[in-house]
């Protein structure tokens, strides 16, 4: 089986102690490695507020695992995650081969000015009009 790049985001329930959270993280790592997955990067976002209330919780512990695995293994990992009580939600996504890993800070601090050049266009258009009005 050829392996593919995957990314697994896990949200752990917020009412767990630090030890329990670490235990859950350890279990997730075990689930991945038991299915011949090789974790090549790990990103722990930590506690984070949800955008909306989910099942009476309004925050959770986010952790992201990047690993090489196969589809069958993924199904098994997801099955074991579903049975795990401390895990609130998870999401597996397959990644393109040239995927660049970014940290949370990089995501949060990035600024996107998507209409920057259009604004300069509209200024340029607005100026001749003003000149016409002056005439």
């Amino acid at each position, binding site marked *: 089986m050829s392996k593919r790049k995957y990314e697994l985001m896990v949200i752990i329930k917020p009412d767990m102690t630090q030890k329990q959270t670490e235990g859950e993280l350890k279990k997730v790592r075990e689930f991945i490695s038991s299915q011949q997955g090789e974790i090549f990067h790990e990103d722990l976002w930590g506690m984070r*507020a949800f955008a909306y209330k989910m099942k009476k919780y309004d925050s959770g512990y986010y952790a992201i695992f990047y690993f090489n695995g196969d589809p069958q293994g993924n199904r098994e990992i997801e099955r074991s995650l579903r049975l795990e009580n401390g895990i609130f939600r998870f999401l597996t996504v397959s*990644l393109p081969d*040239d995927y660049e890993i970014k940290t949370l800070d990089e995501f*949060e601090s990035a600024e996107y000015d998507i209409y920057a050049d259009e604004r300069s266009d509209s200024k340029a258009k607005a100026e001749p009009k003003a000149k016409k009005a002056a005439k």
Partner: protein
Amino acid sequence: MPKNKYNRACPITKMDIKHIDYKNIQLLLKFISRHGKIVPKYYSGVSLVNQKKLAVAIKRARQMGLLPYTSKPRRKRA
């Protein structure tokens, strides 16, 4: 939100973003309205291919509690 202008280039192509990541909240926020809805491509000017990828990314982010389904985004808590 700028008004529709015809024949303008797709903002995502312009910024040279190849992979639209659902974790890239700052980018996705630009393409949802203040009520949390996905902005139609005739307002944002995003190409069809990118709009579809964007929609998937926004929906994933919603599932994971990174973006709201409706209403204004809540203020960040410490």
